């Protein structure tokens, strides 16, 4: 018998360890049975309440919410089956284990116990070990059930909270990351969010001079992390655009911000671009997005596909980021297309990707440019069929047709606060090797020059003139690079590599920039003089190519020239003088 006593002690110990204020309800019309059970349970640490019939049991259950119920079957007033049914109904979500006490071993009777909601049954005569083991097992189950239920409730509450938080965050987000002026009539776009937040970012704002700045970004990842990164990008973009910053300045500011705040695996593939007020000039910086497409409205075919050759934003520090912008001249009715990789990576049911070829094919049909945007979307939708979208899908079309714009937009050129600035001045700047590598004189000079009353609205033009002339002086003058290289296949890359090489090996060489500014009551004039240490070139030849205006080499200078009253090369070709003139606007 020693063994049996040991077992009882073990059971007692287990129960004692788990016991807190577990309460048992004993329901039996037989006072002796009640007494035996009560004794066993309270010995094991249970608080015990009793009932003499089913009716009383229900009342006790409602009043005390016991943790476990031991239920006799045959009782006066209300039998155990009915009481169990009612208690289970009252308990609802709560799990109250009910153990039937029965003298019978009839299988039908036992099955009925389970059917009405009983969890187990005990046959008389009672053995303490078996009773306590069953009670204990069921209490454990009940605890597990309660824990699971509590966790489920917590998840429900958490989920609800999260949805509310997301809603609020979305509201704040859309206030910071607003669409700016994407409703401008010459823009068409689609931006489809994959989740509450979007990994793609599309921003547009008018510049102080009436031009249009656009940023298309694609963050690594989706959802909250992508959205958090988008907030400073948007903030900086709008702020800098409002202040008339040039494309390269916007790129540098955003890059340094992102590099500082984002962990290394997060970054933004982006394209930052500017359209001049008359949509004749398109200036662009391109880091990591798919090719930008320029479509000739007149010839009904693509005239440029521009590949990214820069790091995405937030990957490297500013000193390693190239901010050279690319400038294109547009004709009225030309279209520029920017898109994220969601377009080319859209999948059909066979898990095939839409791909670049299918996209380019949309442009080869020679159709009118008017329906192109819709046609591209239709083609993608047809291709995808019912397949679920797996990435954000963003496509933007800019129609280079300022006649679509209302005068309101065109007149919206903000005139910035005009403190009196000197109106007749000149300045000189002498740059050497270290400056070529470490500074961006074009930005500094543009910033400085456009502080002058009235010139703010010409900021983009002045930037383009300075940038083209400075880069020519550096690349072709000081570094002696042949621009013909660029027109050879793969030449552009060779060109860039060679440029880097020669810049590193440069021993002497300089660029001297002088600016002379004059202004009277009606008009102003800015004369830009750039002299480089290079050996010059046969500029008579250039004039010819400019007239043909087809050759890549002359394009930059021809662009700059078209903005100026006069642009001439002097000396042996190492000196260039550009005269930029403007009428004073009635303030």
């Amino acid at each position, binding site marked *: 018998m020693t063994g049996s006593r040991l077992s009882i002690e073990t059971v007692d110990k287990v129960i004692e360890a788990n016991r807190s204020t577990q309460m048992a309800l004993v329901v039996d019309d037989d006072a002796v049975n009640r007494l035996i059970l009560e004794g066993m349970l309270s010995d094991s640490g249970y608080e015990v309440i009793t009932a003499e019939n089913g009716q009383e049991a229900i009342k006790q259950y409602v009043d005390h919410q016991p943790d476990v119920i031991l239920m006799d079957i045959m009782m006066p007033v209300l039998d155990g089956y009915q009481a169990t049914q009612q208690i289970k109904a009252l308990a609802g979500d709560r799990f109250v284990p009910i153990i039937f006490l029965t003298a019978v071993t009839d299988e039908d009777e036992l099955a009925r116990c389970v059917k009405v909601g009983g969890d187990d049954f005990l046959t008389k005569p009672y053995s303490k070990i078996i009773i306590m083991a069953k009670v204990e097992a069921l209490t454990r189950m009940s605890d597990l059930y309660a824990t699971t239920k509590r966790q489920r409730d917590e998840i429900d509450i958490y989920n609800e909270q999260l949805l509310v938080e997301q809603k609020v965050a979305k509201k704040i987000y859309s206030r910071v990351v607003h669409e700016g002026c994407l409703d401008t009539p010459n823009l068409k776009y689609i931006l489809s969010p994959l989740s509450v937040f979007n990994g793609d970012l599309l921003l547009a704002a008018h510049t102080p001079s009436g031009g249009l700045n656009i940023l298309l970004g694609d963050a690594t*990842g989706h959802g909250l992390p992508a959205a958090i990164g988008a907030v400073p990008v948007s903030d900086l973009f709008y702020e800098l655009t409002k202040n008339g910053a040039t494309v390269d300045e916007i790129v540098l500011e955003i890059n340094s911000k992102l590099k500082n705040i984002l962990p290394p695996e997060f970054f933004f593939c982006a394209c930052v671009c500017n359209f001049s007020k008359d949509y004749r000039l398109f200036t662009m910086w391109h880091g*990591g997005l798919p090719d930008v497409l320029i479509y000739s409205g007149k010839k009904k075919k693509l005239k440029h596909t521009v590949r990214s*050759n820069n790091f995405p934003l937030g990957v490297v520090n500013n000193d390693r980021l190239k901010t050279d912008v690319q400038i294109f001249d547009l004709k009225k009715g030309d279209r520029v297309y920017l898109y994220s990789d969601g377009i080319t990576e859209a999948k059909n049911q066979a898990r095939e990707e839409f791909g670049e070829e299918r996209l380019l094919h949309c442009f080869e049909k020679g159709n009118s440019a008017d329906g192109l945007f819709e046609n591209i979307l239709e083609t993608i939708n047809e291709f995808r069929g019912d397949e679920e979208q797996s990435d954000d899908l963003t496509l933007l079309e800019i129609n280079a047709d300022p006649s679509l714009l209302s005068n309101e937009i065109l007149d919206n050129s903000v005139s910035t606060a005009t403190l009196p600035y000197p109106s007749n001045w000149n300045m000189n700047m002498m740059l050497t090797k270290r400056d070529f590598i470490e500074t961006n004189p074009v930005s500094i000079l543009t910033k400085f020059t456009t502080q002058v009353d009235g010139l703010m609205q010409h900021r983009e033009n002045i930037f383009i003139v300075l940038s083209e002339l400075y880069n020519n002086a550096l690349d072709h003058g000081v570094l002696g690079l042949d621009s013909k290289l660029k027109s050879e296949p793969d030449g552009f890359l060779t060109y860039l590599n060679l440029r880097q090489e020669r810049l590193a090996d440069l021993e002497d060489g300089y660029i001297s920039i002088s600016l002379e500014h004059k202004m009277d009551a009606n008009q102003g004039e800015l004369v830009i003089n750039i002299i480089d240490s290079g050996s010059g070139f046969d500029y008579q030849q250039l004039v010819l190519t400019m007239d043909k205006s087809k050759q890549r080499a002359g394009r930059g200078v021809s662009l700059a020239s078209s903005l100026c009253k006069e642009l001439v090369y002097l000396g042996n070709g190492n000196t260039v003088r550009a005269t930029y003139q403007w009428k004073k606007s009635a303030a």
Partner: protein
Amino acid sequence: MAITITKSGDGRTVTIKLPSEFDFRAHKDFRKSHRDADPSAQYILDFAATEHIDSSALGMLLVMREGLGNDDAKVKIINCRSNIKKLLEMASFDNLFEVA
């Protein structure tokens, strides 16, 4: 297909063979492949079996590079298909990694 790692006899060269879809799902395995890595060793990322990567893969490459000392990291990317090579070039990653 999982990521497999092979070390040369002297442990100086570690070759990491990437899966056919190198995207966020490979994140854990990829991270494991160079956790506690020796920054002085030469790492070779073998893309031979890789058909597709996404931008999070580029992110993972950057994290690896940072873990190995940024500009001091010796990571070589080999056997890229043309579509992947193009993607790496588009993001100028050929300036951060040796792409063979």
